[in-house]
């Protein structure tokens, strides 16, 4: 999906240029920087991505024996899937759900990002805090929080009934709207972090020219800013659309009770058979891969013309903030409402539940029953300190490794003209589509057979996490690099800098916002990873997300809530600490 295919090639330093000249000749090209980098990055990515890819495809085409051995070739899973696709209901529901969530979360997260990064609105720091804190809340707990808030007997319906003088519940959360609403809230911090990075690296001259021509703030935003941010918007929408299309938790917990069925719920309910079969899940993900591959390919072709998206040039790029005047009260209250809805409400209800011996709707009666028993239970959870330590370590490790790998991959995609590099783009996007359980099993089996002794250690989890989160890293760094005009690197090469020092001193500092945004996102995301972790953890390597899952399956809401509050507090502390460091390096502009 890179663009930059303008007619002039990137003006690489003399040494690089001479070898590049020999690219067509063959062997010697192994030693030029982009090519050898391409080989290295492709090898690493291929090593991580291809074994699970193979497994997913194999799973979709073969029946398996109970032992997990491949049995017979079959198209059955695809036939089942096609039959399921022909049932209009689930397919349309899935489509509306995915489109709705992608649009709503982009509008939500995008508006907040614009206000926080490009205006002088008060309360701007609240945007970052809200995003970090809400994203640090365990996924299941967040959903449960909203179900309790919006449920038939929940406080929101209670007050609405009184206000509107109704007897029946006013809002029905178990609906398509409810699903889209909760899913969008879940994803809006991701949009926010990504678009905030993009908004921050804008070319002010284009906007100033627009303003000079008499355009209003809104016109400039629509005609200039938003168009320049097309790659970032595309990335965001693509990711959320896919993730929602294949998501399971919200459809299962929110949709199913209201008889709103999507494709994943059908697959899940059917997959309850024994021996376990993952063929349908495999076929579903293969089908999605084909769709995504086609999308990426066409996007890649569409954007190969010109340097339309360069916003960070040698002419100075620090965007100015829009002075909002009286409107700033409106934007400030917007931020406040966002914080309340995204964070305060669900967190308060979880906090409330965590202090109760059994769940009760918010009331004085409940207050009288307050107890810290759940916290005592949570703190006695087996190996809890090990789990917290492991989860934090895994988050740090996977976020750092993914970001380094994907910065290099994105640089190759954006800056070089190596043929077939869209394949690298595809390869880095595919892990997004692997069903977690199939990918977990693939990695489990791979390292049981390959004589690399990582089975039962944290390393196997790290490998799995890095593979899983490459797609997020690539979207962050790719849209960040697209904004960077190559003239900056050229200037560096002309001044005699090597490729390495140009990367270190020019590219990396300029894409710091994307880099750090991606880093924290992956850190927080990896803290929640469950579907692979449940298979890959060993008695010696507990992680928090699995502990939360155990509580979700077996404990009462209060115990789950108490554990969740503790974990959220830890993650938010890390995020705030990180934010204070990142601030110095420009995640947020002063």
């Amino acid at each position, binding site marked *: 999906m890179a663009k930059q295919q303008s007619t002039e090639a990137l003006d690489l330093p003399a040494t690089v240029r001479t070898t590049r000249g020999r690219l067509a000749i063959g062997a010697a090209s192994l030693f030029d920087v982009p090519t050898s980098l391409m080989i290295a990055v492709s090898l690493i990515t291929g090593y991580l991505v291809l074994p699970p890819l193979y497994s997913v495809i194999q799973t979709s085409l073969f029946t398996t*024996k*109970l*032992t*997990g*051995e491949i049995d017979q070739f079959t198209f059955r899973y695809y036939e089942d899937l096609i039959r399921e696709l022909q049932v209009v*209901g689930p397919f349309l529901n899935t489509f509306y759900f995915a489109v709705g969530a992608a649009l709503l979360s982009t509008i939500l997260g995008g508006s907040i990002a614009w206000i926080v990064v490009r205006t002088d609105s008060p309360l701007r720091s609240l945007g970052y805090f809200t995003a970090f804190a809400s994203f640090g809340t365990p996924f299941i707990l967040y959903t*449960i929080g909203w*179900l*309790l808030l919006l*449920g*038939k*007997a929940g406080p929101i319906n209670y007050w609405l009934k009184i206000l509107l003088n109704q007897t029946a519940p006013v809002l029905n959360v*178990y609906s398509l709207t409810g699903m889209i609403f909760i899913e969008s809230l879940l994803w809006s911090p991701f949009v926010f972090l990504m678009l905030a990075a993009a908004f921050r690296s804008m070319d002010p001259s284009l906007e100033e020219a627009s303003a000079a021509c008499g355009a209003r703030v809104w016109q400039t935003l629509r005609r200039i800013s938003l168009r320049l941010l097309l790659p970032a918007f595309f990335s965001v929408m693509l990711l959320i659309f896919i993730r929602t299309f294949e998501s399971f938790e919200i459809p*299962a*917990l929110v949709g*199913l*009770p*209201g*008889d709103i*069925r999507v494709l994943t*719920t*059908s697959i*899940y*309910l*059917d997959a*309850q*058979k*024994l*021996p*376990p079969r993952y063929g349908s899940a495999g076929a579903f993900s293969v089908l999605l891969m084909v769709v995504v591959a086609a999308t990426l390919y066409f996007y890649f072709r569409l954007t190969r013309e010109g340097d339309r998206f360069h916003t960070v040039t040698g002419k100075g790029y620090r965007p100015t903030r829009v002075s909002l005047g009286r409107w700033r009260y409106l934007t400030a209250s917007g931020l406040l409402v966002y914080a309340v809805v995204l964070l305060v409400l669900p967190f308060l209800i979880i906090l409330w539940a965590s202090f109760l*011996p*059994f*769940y*009760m*709707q918010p009331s004085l009666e409940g207050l009288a*029953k307050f107890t810290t028993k759940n916290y005592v*239970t949570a703190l*006695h*959870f*087996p190996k809890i300190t090990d789990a917290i330590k492991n989860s934090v370590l895994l988050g740090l490790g996977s976020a750092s490794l993914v970001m380094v790998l994907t910065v290099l991959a994105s640089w190759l995609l954006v800056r070089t003209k190596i043929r077939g590099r869209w394949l690298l783009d595809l390869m880095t996007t595919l892990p997004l589509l692997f069903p977690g359980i199939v990918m977990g*099993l693939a990695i*489990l*089996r791979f390292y*049981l*057979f390959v004589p690399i002794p990582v*089975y039962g250690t944290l390393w196997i989890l790290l490998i799995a996490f890095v593979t899983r989160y490459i797609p997020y890293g690539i979207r962050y760094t790719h849209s960040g690099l697209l904004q960077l005009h190559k003239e900056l690197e050229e200037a560096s090469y002309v001044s005699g800098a090597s490729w390495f020092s140009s990367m270190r001193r020019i590219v990396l500092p300029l894409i710091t916002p994307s880099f750090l945004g991606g880093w924290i996102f992956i850190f927080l995301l990896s803290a929640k990873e469950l579907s692979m972790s*449940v*298979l890959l953890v*060993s*008695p010696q390597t507990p992680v928090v997300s699995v502990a939360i899952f*155990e509580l*979700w*399956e*077996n*404990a*009462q*809401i209060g115990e789950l809530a108490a554990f969740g509050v503790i974990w959220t507090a830890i993650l938010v502390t890390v995020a705030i600490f990180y934010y204070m460091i990142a601030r110095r390096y420009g995640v947020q502009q002063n």
Partner: protein
Amino acid sequence: MRKNLIAATLLLLSLTPLANAATVEEIALMNRADRQKILVEGAKKEGKVSWYTTLIVDQVVRPVKEAFEKEYPFIQMEYFRGNSERLVQKMLAEYQAKRYDVDMIDGTVSPTMVRRAGYLQRFYSPMLAEYPADLKDPQGFWGTTNLYFFATGYNTRMVKPTEVPKTYEDLLNPRWKGQMMWSTSRGSGAPIFVGTILNSMGMEAGKAYLQKLKAQNIAKSTASNRQVLDLTIAGEYPLALQMFNHHAFISKSAGAPVDWQPHEPVTATIHTVALAKNSPHPHAAMLLLDFVMSERGQKAYQQANYLPSHPKVPAKQADLKPGTRFKRAYYINPDAQYDKGNEWVDYFNSVFLK
């Protein structure tokens, strides 16, 4: 030359213990007067035992571990907890790669899955004689440790005592339309409810009943039984079908507005324990199997508020087991659940999913 010598020595060394030791099968099926002595001696050398479990660590695994290690201080117990499917996937993948970590595995359906894959070892335990026929495998592949009984959980503030549905027929009362929820879980949710109905009423009457029940619009959730019951306590749905009766009891004891009502015959599932085919610590594993089925071991389950399967060990709250509050239970044999379960899931999906 020297390399070969070292290789030969290593080979010899690695073969020696094998030559003397009995096989897992021999140890598992051993039935002689000095069995206990041999097991203890062997276990002392092994020093460890590993248990793959679906039980809750905090509630029951830890107390059982403590009780077992008190009995045999020279054995250290390691456990790994997961739900049935993940646990079995893990064990099967390990066996495929010839990595034998697990000694004992438990669960309502996991031992059966492992057995079908061919990775269980039949065993003899003197404790088995103390159990009735439907609580042990005739071929000796599994014994049981505890039982689960299912009932309708209801919110006592929303359902008056006179309204409480007593029988399966009562669930068809129009009063409950849109007021019930159940879990879709294969092992503990709606599918085994379907199984009980089809088995106890007979195919035709059972199907007719389920069609009528369908019209009641029962809300479905993939959440666990525990979470569905908590939604009932929260007031979202007055009735929760197919709940573990001990969950309702535990919440009620904490003061929650909830109680349980059995419908006869009560659906019951049994928690089985089994020995892994290539158990790396077979002596210790047999001591552990003996222990969890013994009256002393069963007390640890009892104290954890689980329902011990040993006929002589009552539940801590006695009426949770059959006898007083309900008489008839339909025990779902794990092998039957494995074989018939797919049909129940299919039937549930085709009738109750819109």
